């Protein structure tokens, strides 16, 4: 099934878009996302992808133009990084069209990766999925369309991959057969798509499905409800992907080597991939600490963490971000989710890898060991920079 190629993360993104038969793409060059645009332009020029590419003058226009195309009924794709993502913020806010966007993480204080770019889009109402390797990147592009276009959801998806660490690093990636992808992902049927033979009344009725109107509080409620509905859709899509392609990613999160663990560390993106062998080594030493890889940051798996809280005595949350003046975004949300749990486990926080600083297995080991200690008694400090 399929075939393997050695490819960098940005090429995996572009392959995902090709296999998903994207009809309209638009993007503006920015490091480290740029080569996605180049790969797509090449795929179109070689006839591997039959899509319109809108050569825009800015990320804001890339974002708005794919929204226009999606509204008009086309499957759309865009990609950006750090500052470009910030420039998209205005049109991203509140968008309710099933666009898929790759975010090649770039710090707001360096050109190297951290998650401050996508975390700054926390409240825009997009689904946020974080990837840890290039295979997951390609697979997540395809899954993202299936999630975004689901009638229960109908929301945009941003999928994150760490700049440089994935974007420019080659790994073997299996490219699934087009026929299988076609079977998994049917053609897009846009809710708001106009057609010359359609009456305005028909079109309005079609467009209004599930979407509260602008100017009302209901618009926020509906958007939030669709986002929460995405939780089960993400799980379903991941399971179906597993059945069809033989790979799955746990849906919202993956518990790795967590059996009978006393404590778990929580990591996102490539830090999760660094953590796997470290956790394996610790388990071999008899230290009962596992890894929870958080893939879906929005919707956030609050209930699922509460369930996990019954099994683990401590969570050590690694944030490759900081909300300045508050702290780790994931740490704060996870800790808040545990508030109502009886016999609460402890939750401690770590900031690391900001501005692309290297996160080594040794650092992850320290984090895991401190978390294990927290499972047995109080530790100081509650949050630290590693």
């Amino acid at each position, binding site marked *: 099934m399929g075939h393997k190629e050695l490819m960098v993360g940005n090429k995996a993104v572009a392959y995902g878009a090709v296999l998903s038969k994207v009809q309209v793409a638009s993007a503006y060059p920015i490091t480290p996302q740029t080569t996605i645009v180049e790969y797509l332009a090449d795929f179109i020029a070689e006839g591997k992808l039959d899509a319109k590419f809108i050569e825009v003058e800015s990320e804001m226009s890339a974002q*708005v133009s794919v929204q226009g195309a999606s509204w008009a*009924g086309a499957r759309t794709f865009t990609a950006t990084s750090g500052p470009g993502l910030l420039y998209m913020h205005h049109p991203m806010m509140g968008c309710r069209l099933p666009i898929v966007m790759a975010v090649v993480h770039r710090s707001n204080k360096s050109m190297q990766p951290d998650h401050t770019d996508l975390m700054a889009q926390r409240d825009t109402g997009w689904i946020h999925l974080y990837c840890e390797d290039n295979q997951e990147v390609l697979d997540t592009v395809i899954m993202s369309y299936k999630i975004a276009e689901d009638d229960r959801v109908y929301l945009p998806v941003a999928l994150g991959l760490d700049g440089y660490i994935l974007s420019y690093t080659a790994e073997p990636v299996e490219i699934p057969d087009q026929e299988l992808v076609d079977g998994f992902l049917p053609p897009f049927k846009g809710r708001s798509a106009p057609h010359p033979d359609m009456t*305005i009344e028909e079109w309005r009725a079609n467009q209004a499905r599930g979407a509260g109107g602008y100017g009302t509080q209901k618009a926020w409620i509906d958007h939030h409800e669709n986002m929460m509905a995405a939780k089960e859709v993400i799980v379903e899509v991941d399971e179906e992907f597993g059945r069809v392609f033989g790979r799955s990613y746990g849906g919202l999160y993956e518990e790795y080597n967590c059996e009978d663990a006393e404590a778990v560390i929580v990591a996102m993106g490539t830090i999760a991939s660094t953590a796997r062998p470290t956790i394996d080594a610790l388990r071999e030493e008899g230290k009962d600490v596992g890894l929870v890889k958080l893939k879906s940051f929005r919707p956030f798996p609050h209930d699922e963490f509460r369930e996990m809280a019954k099994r683990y005595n401590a969570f050590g949350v690694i944030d490759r971000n900081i909300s300045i003046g508050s702290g780790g975004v994931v740490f704060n949300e996870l800790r808040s989710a545990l508030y109502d749990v009886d016999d609460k486990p402890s939750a401690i926080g770590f900031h690391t890898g900001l501005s692309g600083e290297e996160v080594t297995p040794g650092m992850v080991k320290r984090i895991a060991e401190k978390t294990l200690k927290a499972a047995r008694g109080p530790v100081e400090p509650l949050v630290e920079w590693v």
Partner: protein
Amino acid sequence: MSKSVPLGKMAGEEIVTSGSTSCQGCGHAVLARLAFKAFGRKTIFTLVPGCIWITLSRNIPLFSTGTVFEGGGALISGITNGLAARGIEDMNVVAFYGDGGTADIGLQGLSAAAERNEDVFWICADNQAYMNTGGQRSGATPKYAQTTTTPASDIRRGKRTKRKNLPFIVAAHDVAYVGTASIAYPSDLVGKIEYAKGLKGFKFLHVQSPCPTGWGFSPSDTIKVARLTVQSGIWPLFEITEGSDFRLTYKPRELKPVGEALGPQRRFRHLTDEESQEIQSRVNGQWKQLLEIDGKRLPF
């Protein structure tokens, strides 16, 4: 080139419905009625924030959507490409934006869409200030005009600089069509839309839309004010076809004095004779230049 359509021969269906919440005497309402009659039902119109979205859009029962203020050019580009990807090529994709969404915050996206020669029709309904937010100056506000951010006093004389030359900015992108129009000249306006809507590529129509509320004249005088600005040469009617063929579409034998057009507008009431004279000389000079290039190819 366009052919003016006599009022009695305007065949299209009336699309715009009555009962909009626009101000009495709003130029945009007149423009919408004429323009969408010319475009017909197979039309998508798009919005960015402004008077049109707030007061008129519900009275235009066509496919429509809107976006952020700065996103107008990208939105229509996305729509036309999205439709083309679905094999739909026979719909008019119309931008119906104000001067802010065109000349100021929207200029970057306008330029980019024009440079790509996207198959869209952009109408700028120009009331020469941010009227929806209460009448602040824009890049399309003429020199000396009073707005809420350019008041006139002994030391400040209204807006300090001339308005942007929007049609020539767009024409410099070598697009399918550029024209100016006035709601006081519906035959000319409708003729231009009828002609240009059939062209493939980027079409731009810059329509002056007098605003009784912002300019300070009686709501019953909208058409009169519009007509006087054309007759005095302040708002010349022309078109640029094939990328650079320039043609005046209305040539009065003699221009009326600018004072006749500016007189009824409160925003110019503070003008000294010297300032009026400056406007008159500039209009005279520009008119002379336009007559010189009439019927000729522009150097771009």
